[in-house]
């Protein structure tokens, strides 16, 4: 980090779009407040349009910011991290304070564009999707709240703001999953999502606290030595990512065999795993599909669930310095990506398939980050690249699924079929998305997946590469499966027969996303985000990576075509008998939910909660009640004094005064 950008920021000569970037999160917040406090109570019908308008303003502003940023620091050169709009928010102690502000660097700008674009398109799509819903106003208000929180998270310059927005994102996700609050399954799904992520957030909080503590303790020394630039605060990313800080922390004695840098980062990784639904904390994401489909597209595919990935990417220098957490991340990512892909092959609910697919792709991203190292940061670029492209095609898939569900009134792919003719625009866009996620050139998924595989291979993680390649075959298979079952063949139900194309307000976002799904991969991402420019500067197709990957994708597609084109029930049953009991296990999602349930019921409820509750009810409450009883008894005896007689009081007062005078006289006077 050179001194120049800081001087630029201080002299206030940055372009307006960067100086005023704080407007980007605040615009949706304004929309939330305006909608929630004014428009909704007034029952104004154009609330959705207003909500979308605020997000559109954010989108335009963030695009302007991207243009301004890369105008100042052209692609391929060094990209500094700027902080604008900083205010001192929470002064805790002298030397320990937390600020608010907007952090501008390529990573946050990437997320900014993704969040704003997808959020705006989802807003647009929702205007059509939710047109007849009585809770429309509430929906859009929550959507604005979510957008605000997510943007605040992305732009956070320190861990605390990130944490606050992280929880806000969780809260709005909770609200939106439980949007149909009269449906018991939605309510329990929202509770499940909230509790599971809260559980993981405990790790995040602990990690945050320990990092902030380390920062607080080490900052004065580092500043005195001139190792870090002045003006940093304890939880600032700029400090946490600073090599001098890593050195200082690694110099401290390790704890339980882990360095003091790894420990908090592992805790942070736990939070990230919860939010990004990594194994074994993934159980909330499939259930979260109870929310409205656009919500799934926005929150549970493109934005919120990538917050974990973003966190790791944000602190990547720290992770790279610690190494151990990255290995864990790689393992976790690989495991989740394979595991979820396998389950996805067996599900019949279109949204669940997409949800497991999301899990799998998130695992992919984490895997990519995990294989990156300080001296070989290609994985970092690749993970974020995949995050970028995945956001578009996965939200496209969800929105397409939403259109289909809207038309068919069912989530079950076996009740669809033959939609190719009835919903041509949806079909085209869905097909583009399926091909993009399958990784066929020249669509977006191909390039990002290519980068990931390359990163794994070149980083020397052969096992991980193998798993990734396997998943590269599985992904096209299950995606093609749902595509073929839902769109191909003939209609399998009455509603599917009567399905028709969605209105333009819904198809336009689909087509826009389809366009993005095609083009997003053509960006030379390494020039924008790359950490080591010498190594990853050459962008292009690496045939040693691309050929096996494309072959795997084609294999998956072919298998799906073989099994699901026309009436192929016999072949499927043969395959199922080949798998034997394993098929049942897969179908039941490896019984992870049941294991958790057992753990929660037997261990937590019976073993921990019940004794604590007993203690609380008898001992703690007993003490409180005893105090209450005592004071009541005392009060009851004292009420005898309170006769309600004015003159009685006057007499007591007089007598008391005289007693005081006498007492004081004896005490002080004497003579």
């Amino acid at each position, binding site marked *: 980090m050179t001194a120049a950008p800081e001087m630029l920021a201080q002299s206030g000569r940055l372009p307006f779009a960067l100086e005023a970037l704080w407007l980007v999160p605040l615009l949706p917040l304004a929309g939330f407040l305006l909608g929630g406090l004014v428009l909704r109570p007034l029952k104004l019908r154009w609330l959705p349009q207003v909500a979308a308008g605020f997000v559109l303003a954010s989108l335009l502003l963030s695009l302007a910011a991207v243009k301004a940023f890369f105008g100042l620091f052209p692609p391929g050169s060094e990209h500094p991290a700027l902080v604008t709009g900083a205010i001192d928010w929470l002064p805790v102690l002298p030397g320990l304070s937390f600020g608010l502000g907007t952090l501008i660097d390529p990573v946050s700008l990437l997320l900014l564009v993704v969040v704003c674009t997808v959020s705006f398109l989802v807003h647009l799509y929702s205007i059509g999707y939710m047109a007849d819903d009585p809770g429309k106003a509430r929906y859009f208000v929550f959507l604005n709240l979510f957008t605000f929180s997510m943007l605040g998270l992305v732009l956070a310059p320190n861990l605390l703001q990130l944490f606050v927005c992280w929880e806000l994102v969780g809260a709005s996700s909770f609200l939106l999953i439980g949007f149909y609050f009269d449906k018991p399954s939605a309510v329990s799904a929202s509770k499940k999502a909230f509790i599971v992520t809260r559980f993981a957030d405990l790790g995040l909080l602990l990690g945050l606290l320990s990092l902030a503590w380390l920062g607080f303790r080490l900052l004065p020394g580092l500043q005195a030595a001139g190792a870090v630039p002045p003006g940093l605060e304890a939880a600032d990313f700029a400090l946490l990512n600073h090599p001098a800080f890593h050195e200082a922390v690694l110099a401290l004695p390790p704890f339980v065999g882990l360095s003091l840098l790894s420990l908090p980062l592992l805790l942070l990784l736990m939070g990230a795993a919860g939010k990004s639904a990594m194994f074994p904390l993934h159980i909330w994401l499939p259930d979260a599909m109870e929310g409205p489909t656009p919500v799934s597209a926005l929150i549970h595919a493109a934005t919120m669930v990538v917050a974990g990935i973003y966190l790791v990417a944000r602190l990547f220098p720290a992770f790279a310095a610690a190494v151990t957490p990255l290995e864990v991340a790689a393992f976790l990512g690989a495991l989740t990506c394979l595991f979820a892909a396998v389950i996805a092959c067996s599900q019949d609910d279109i949204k669940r398939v997409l949800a497991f697919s999301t899990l799998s792709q998130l695992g992919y991203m984490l895997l990519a980050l995990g294989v990156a190292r300080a001296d070989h940061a290609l994985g970092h670029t690749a993970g974020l690249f995949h995050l970028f492209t995945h956001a578009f095609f996965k939200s496209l898939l969800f929105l397409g699924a939403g259109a289909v569900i809207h038309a068919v009134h069912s989530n079950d792919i076996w009740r669809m079929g033959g939609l190719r003719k009835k919903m041509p625009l949806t079909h085209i866009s869905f097909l583009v998305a399926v091909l993009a996620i399958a990784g066929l050139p020249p669509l977006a998924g191909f390039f990002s997946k290519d980068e990931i595989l390359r990163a794994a291979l070149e980083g020397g993680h052969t096992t991980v590469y193998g798993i990734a390649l396997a998943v590269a075959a599985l992904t096209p298979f299950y995606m093609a499966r749902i595509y073929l079952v839902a769109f191909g063949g003939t209609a399998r139900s009455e509603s599917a027969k009567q399905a028709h194309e969605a209105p333009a307000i819904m198809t336009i976002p689909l087509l826009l996303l389809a366009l993005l799904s095609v083009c997003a991969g053509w960006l030379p991402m390494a020039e924008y985000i790359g950490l080591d420019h010498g190594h990853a500067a050459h962008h292009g197709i690496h045939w040693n990576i691309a050929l096996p990957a494309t072959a795997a994708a084609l294999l998956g597609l072919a298998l799906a075509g073989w099994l699901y084109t026309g009436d192929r029930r016999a072949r499927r049953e043969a395959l199922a008998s080949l798998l034997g009991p394993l098929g049942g296990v897969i179908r039941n999602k490896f019984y992870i939910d049941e294991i958790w349930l057992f753990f929660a019921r037997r261990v937590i409820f019976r073993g921990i909660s019940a004794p604590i509750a007993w203690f609380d009810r008898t001992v703690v409450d007993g003490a409180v009640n005893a105090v209450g009883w005592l004071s009541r008894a005392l009060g009851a005896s004292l*009420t*005898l004094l*309170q006769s*309600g*007689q*004015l*003159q009685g009081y*006057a007499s007591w007062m*007089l007598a008391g005064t005289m007693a005081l005078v006498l007492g004081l006289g004896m005490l002080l006077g004497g003579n």
Partner: protein
Amino acid sequence: MSFFPVGIQHWLLLCLALFSFGLYGLLTRRSAMGLLLAIEIMVNSAAVLVVALIHLLHPGKLDGQLSALFFIALAAAEVVLALGIYVPLARSRPSGDVTQLNDLRG
């Protein structure tokens, strides 16, 4: 202490006596109006006391008179408010007997 000349102690004792009469009235009266009368005696005696003390300790200093002015204003305010409370009370109750007004009994 002799009868003449009249000094601080004479004034103090006079005011004390007046105050004690007021006190007696305050403690014995049953009617709210009677209480008010007694309180007026007490306030007045206090005001006289302040004026007398300042006058005798520091002749010509106006603080005593000024505070007595405030006393009088306060007493007027108090009476007005007391009557404002008393009149509706007396209308809504069978009598203005304060010993019957014990709704706040614990």
